[in-house]
């Protein structure tokens, strides 16, 4: 029997409210026991003294570009970046070619992941056929094939009637609906957050209200249809307030924030640097504070990276021509530690929850915990080690990161998926 014992770490498992120095034993790919002085005879031992031992991190929002854009990323390279960032599970969004709008594509992604991914891969299916916002995708069969949520990420469903039908259908199959909330008419032509920076730089703006009106619309539809609705990458203060109101009223509404939206504002962008161009855009300082406050108060449920690789050829153009999106798997934990933990805003256990129990709960995954019997996914990290991110050494195929050259305090040490080390810091 294969046994791994992680010794003497600070074991933080928000789902079981554990935060103590202990050992974690994994047998046959599953968590066996958590406790003091566990038996190590015949076991592989990992000394985690001074390190945090947490449930495997789950990133519920990534783009792995396969199938269709393998020059930007593949399931293999994306999962390497995930593992190097401490993630054991990832949810690739459906905007591939072909779009993941039917069971065949869902199965293809899962099959490729079985052979090539270092991490668990739980695909998100499309809401509508080809994410065109017109006809519903094959939602039920994607669920049966392994999809854990539906979303037309990046191509938000503009037609409220279609969204209503999608929510009703998702409810029948117990799938959360994830929406990239953006009113495409309000945001049309925009390249960055509409505010004093866009005005100064002469760039067309994406107003925060383009996000807020869709968050509001979707909350109303979720209430009407009694469906679980999740706001992807919330970036505006006003949207956080709308979500707060929905939660106060007991609606099944959740949301995620990205590391870049809590670490950077529009004014942090070096002029016309496309590595800072994404959707939703980096917003004002007030919005950033609003999202961070949302995390502190518990309104923001999860952290997700929206890891969006684009090759250099696409990002090395006039700003307005560059595609939206930045990579983020390898820097997510470093950012969270800096912005949330070292700043004193959030206790470590709560920070861990944002990466583990929360996304597992939203997606209904039997992961994100170290409870005995759970899959042996473990993220080991430290909170003090200083390191500098060099995007040119990234495991991702693409190098579009706004955090190149940034020095972090703390980051991943080792990543264990189903009981097996898939990554260790050099």
């Amino acid at each position: 029997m294969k046994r791994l014992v992680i010794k003497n770490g600070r074991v933080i498992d928000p789902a079981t409210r554990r935060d103590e120095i202990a050992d974690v034993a994994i047998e046959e790919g599953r968590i066996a026991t958590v406790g003091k002085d566990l038996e190590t005879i015949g076991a592989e031992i990992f000394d985690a003294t001074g390190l945090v031992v947490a449930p495997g991190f789950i990133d519920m929002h990534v783009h792995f570009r396969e199938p269709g854009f393998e020059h930007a990323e593949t399931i293999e390279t994306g999962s390497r970046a995930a593992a190097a960032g401490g993630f054991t599970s990832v949810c690739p969004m459906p905007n591939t070619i072909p779009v993941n709008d039917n069971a065949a594509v869902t199965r293809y992604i899962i099959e490729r992941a079985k052979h090539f991914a270092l991490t668990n891969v739980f695909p998100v299916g499309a809401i509508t056929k080809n994410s065109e916002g017109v006809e519903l995708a094959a939602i039920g069969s994607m669920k049966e094939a392994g999809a854990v949520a539906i979303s037309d990420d990046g191509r938000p469903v503009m037609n409220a009637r279609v969204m209503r039908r999608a929510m009703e259908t998702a409810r029948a199959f117990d799938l959360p609906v994830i929406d990239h909330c953006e009113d495409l008419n309000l945001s049309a032509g925009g390249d960055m957050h509409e505010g004093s920076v866009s005005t100064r730089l002469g760039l067309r703006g994406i107003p925060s209200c383009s996000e807020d009106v869709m968050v509001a619309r979707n909350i109303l539809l979720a209430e009407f249809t009694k469906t679980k609705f999740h706001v992807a990458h919330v970036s505006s203060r006003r949207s956080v307030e709308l979500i707060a109101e929905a939660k106060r009223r007991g609606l099944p509404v959740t949301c995620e924030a990205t590391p870049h939206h809590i670490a950077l504002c529009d004014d942090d962008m070096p002029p016309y640097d496309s590595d800072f161009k994404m959707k939703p855009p980096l917003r004002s300082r007030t919005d950033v504070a609003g999202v961070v406050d949302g995390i502190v108060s518990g309104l923001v449920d999860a952290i997700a990276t929206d890891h969006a690789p684009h090759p250099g050829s696409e990002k090395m153009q006039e700003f307005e021509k560059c595609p939206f999106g930045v990579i983020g798997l390898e820097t997510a934990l470093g950012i969270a530690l800096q912005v949330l933990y070292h700043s004193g805003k959030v206790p470590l256990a709560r920070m861990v929850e944002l990466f583990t129990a929360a996304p597992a709960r939203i997606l209904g995954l039997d992961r994100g915990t170290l409870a005995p019997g759970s899959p042996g996914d473990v993220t080991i990290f430290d909170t003090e080690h200083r390191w500098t991110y060099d995007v040119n050494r990234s495991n991702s195929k693409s190098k579009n990161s706004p955090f190149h050259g940034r020095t972090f305090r703390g980051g991943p040490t080792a990543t264990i998926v189903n009981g097996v080390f898939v990554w260790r810091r050099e």
Partner: protein
Amino acid sequence: MMPGLLGIEALSREEIEAILTRAKDFQPLQNHAFKRLDTLKGRMIVNLFFEASTRTRTSFEIAAKRLGADAISISAAGSSVSKGESLVDTLNTLAAMRPNAIVMRHSASGAPHFLSRYLPIPIINAGDGTHEHPTQALLDARTILDYRQSLEDLRVAIIGDIAHSRVARSNIFLLSKFKAEIVLCGPPPLLPPELVEMAPGVRLTPNIREAIRAVDVIMMLRVQLERQHEACFPASEYFQFYGLRLEHLELAKPNAIVMHPGPINRGREIASEVADSQSSVILNQVENGVAVRMAVLERILG
């Protein structure tokens, strides 16, 4: 020596003053029979215009030639850009032919800033999208100084589509460095409130009469239909509410001047009678374009 000229925002007041003073030296040359100097003899300047332009391009070309430099003008139509080459590759190709500077106009805001990170030669911005048009602001300042002692404490109204105007932005940056009072006026959708944060001394009004009251300078902007992706104001009533007419001039200071970066749309943003009036200095602006661009080229390449 400046590394290039990407915008007014990063220029110091001293640099601006030096250019304006030098431009004054070049003004009389316009009237000489023999207009060619040899300050930049043997230098080569490439004018690369990805957007249509008559006055700016011609003016840069004349400025280069008067300084004795060789000037080559390339327009995007018919160049490799229309064959799908990326902007960086196009510029790298031209840079490999070792010109001493590239003057460029591009429809994308920040295009010259983006290129300057990759190119080892000076880039002079001849207008980037809706961002800056630095030599226009310099020639506007030169023109104002031909009629006023100083730029200090002037009151200037800029009227029109401010949101999409690179001329407005460069002028705001420049005038603000001299502590001028700047009143921006236009239809509200073209007058974002964040404009007041661009520089000190800026205020906004949607009312043309209020904007013009007691000003020294009225700068009219062209209605930039090609830069608007939607109808921000009913075209049928633009002239009624934002067109400059003779009756407005009475509200300004008695000897106020009227400026326009051109090309003008008579009857759309400016009445013919105003454009041809004693107050209009529109052709002086064009004339100063050559002198100012000579000063800029000399400063960068001399």
